[in-house]
């Protein structure tokens, strides 16, 4: 245990608390509360009934009023703690409410009706998970199909993104050629306009190319992300050119240099981009919504969106499905972040 604690509380240097250690722990604990707290709350909320979701004061955990079946009543009755006129409290089941007065019975003695002012009773609550938030959508929608579409879009788009962007980044970081800065600039310039703005022109292009209602129509416009090129290019700038020189001396073709030298050395940035790409493509919503209007092509996010109506949004389903759809990306993140480890680029050089 001591060892574990020492490991967890490992500090700079060894002895004493350096101020950076204090900042670190302050930040980590703060991060845990602020960054992660809402997430946990999200998970709990996804297990609440719509009524509990709308409730104030909100509860952290999903609670519902406890119910009992009482002899002589077909339906289960709600349990309340009722304050009696003599100041004692009893656990009673509510039979019905008439105006301000609730008619209640003791579940153990169901014959006698007790009248209680509605303000003198508080519900007996127990934790209960509204698992139907999860199960219902699975029944409603073709979850496996949507999942497959999502996975297909995400995987294919991410792979193409990684390859295509890293190739461009390689050219833009390791070659001197005319128009290099222009190319870089154009790429950056297109970052400037949000998708919602170019949606209509893009839509007409997609239609023209016959990519409407095709998963490729979702994939292709996203794979040339300027962001990816930019991230990779800037990272590649930090790889020493001498390694490329060495590879050229080793008769490596430019393709081999790209594939065998530059890409592995860019692993941390590639991992970052892969994570981003997966997250983006997985969560993509607006664009697939435009391109895909057929149920069999829906991705999870599009499928999920059907719970947003005109006048009403069924948040309990959306939250539950959000939690479900998040699991794969969290796993992907955990897997990929391992590649963001100590860069190796420097150590081959004197």
């Amino acid at each position: 245990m001591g060892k574990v604690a020492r490991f967890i509380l490992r500090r700079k240097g060894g002895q004493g608390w350096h101020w950076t250690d204090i900042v670190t722990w302050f930040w980590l604990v703060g991060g845990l509360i602020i960054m992660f707290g809402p997430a946990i709350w999200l998970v709990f909320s996804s297990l609440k009934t719509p009524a509990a979701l709308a409730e104030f004061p909100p509860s952290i955990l999903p609670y519902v009023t406890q119910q009992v079946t009482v002899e002589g009543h077909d339906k289960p009755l709600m349990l309340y703690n009722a304050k009696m006129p003599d100041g004692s409290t009893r656990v009673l089941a509510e039979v019905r409410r008439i105006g301000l007065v609730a008619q209640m019975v003791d579940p153990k003695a169901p014959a006698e009706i007790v009248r209680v002012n509605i303000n003198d009773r508080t519900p007996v609550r127990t934790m209960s998970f509204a698992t139907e938030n999860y199960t219902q959508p699975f029944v409603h929608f073709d979850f496996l199909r949507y999942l497959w579409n999502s996975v297909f879009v995400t995987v294919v788009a991410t792979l193409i993104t990684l390859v295509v962007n890293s190739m461009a980044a390689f050219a833009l970081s390791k070659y001197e050629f005319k128009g290099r800065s222009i190319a870089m600039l154009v790429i950056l310039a297109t970052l400037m306009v949000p998708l919602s703005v170019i949606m209509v022109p893009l839509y007409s292009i997609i239609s023209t190319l016959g990519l409407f209602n095709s998963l490729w129509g979702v994939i292709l416009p996203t794979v040339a992300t300027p962001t990816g090129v930019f991230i990779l290019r800037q990272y590649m700038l930090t790889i020493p050119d001498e390694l490329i020189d060495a590879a050229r001396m080793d008769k490596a073709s430019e393709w081999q240099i790209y594939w065998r030298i530059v890409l592995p050395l860019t692993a941390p940035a590639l991992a970052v981009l892969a994570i981003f790409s997966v997250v983006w493509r997985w969560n993509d919503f607006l664009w697939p919504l435009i391109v895909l209007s057929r149920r069999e092509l829906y991705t999870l996010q599009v499928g999920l969106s059907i719970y947003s109506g005109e006048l009403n949004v069924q948040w309990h389903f959306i939250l539950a499905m959000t939690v479900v759809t998040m699991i794969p990306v969290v796993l992907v993140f955990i897997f990929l972040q391992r590649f963001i480890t100590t860069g190796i680029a420097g150590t081959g050089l004197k």
Partner: protein
Amino acid sequence: GDVRIMWYSDGVEGEVMKDLVGRFMKENPGINVILDNVAYSVIKEQLPVQLEAGNGPDIARVTAIKDLSKHWLDLRPLVKDAKYWDDNFGLQADWMRPDGSKQISGFMTQITLTGGYANKTLFDQAGVSIPGPKATWEDWAAASKKVQESQQVPFAMAIDRSGHRITAPLLSYGANYIGEGGKPAPLDKGAKDYLTKFVGWAGDGTVSKDVWVSAAGSTYRAAADDFINGQLVFYYSGSWQVANLATKIGNNFDWVAVGSPCGPAACTGMPGGAALVAVKYTKNPKDVGVVMDWFAQEKIVKEFSERTLFLPGHKGVVDKGGLDFKSDNAQAKTALNVFVESTKTTSEAALKLPGWRWSDTVYAAIVTRIGQTLAGELKIDDAFVRIDADIAQKVKDAGQ
């Protein structure tokens, strides 16, 4: 062949529809109906683009029915019995066809009607009696204010942030949006009167301004949550809230639907709704006709309404009455019936607006500017000027 229906849901209607589609296909083996459930935003934002490009589904459930009417298919030659359609859906037929045409574009899957809800328990606790059917907006304001003060809830009244919602009291105050040649008229006295009153109520805390200031532009916001949590005495929204309130309030308190309060001119709510329409660009008009016919059957409409807790848009169904809404919540059933009743008192002016092409423009301008006024960014008089200017600009933009 294939018939695709683009459908959005506010509640369970997607499920009901799926069920019905299954039934349809059993009865009509040759036609494969595919129900594409989408988000409402797709209907609102993407569908128009698709339609302009000549894409789109074969049938769609839409709300901007007038705006897009040039894309709808004329079903008149395709349906079995056009007269049945005219008789039962004629009242709203104008809402969904280009001005001046006689086309049958589709039918309303649901009629909505704005109206108020009162927290009966709060009234009871405060010992204030709920104003009667002929009560005015002022009466309601006074009564709910009393309840609010006695029960220490944050707000007395709230109206959804929506031009459509607020138009109901405006009409009751005698406002008329439609000017010469069907173009928007400048805000008239009736409109200004109510808006001034409304802003005043917001100022003295009678009306919750939270929901109105909580967005910019014409964004829709509902104040239902406050009502659900018992924080609100009187809530003006619409019939579609019934199911929502029923599930979320449960038996926390008693509530009632009270129809629309009165103004000097009328006691009207605003109708609205969503229509199921056929799209011109279908490759399969014959089958589309069959599908539409099937869904427009009286018994199907009735079943659909009962299961979804929607007000039917079918004259026969309404007139025959006896709708048995499928809810185990007695308050909900009562409320729905109140709304069904009040469809009958809807004013002429109110019935015209859904079929008027500029109504959304007016709504948007009012919401935008009144929202700003409540947030303290505009004075009410400036707001009126701006509203008129905004509308005029839009009309100009549209090239008319």
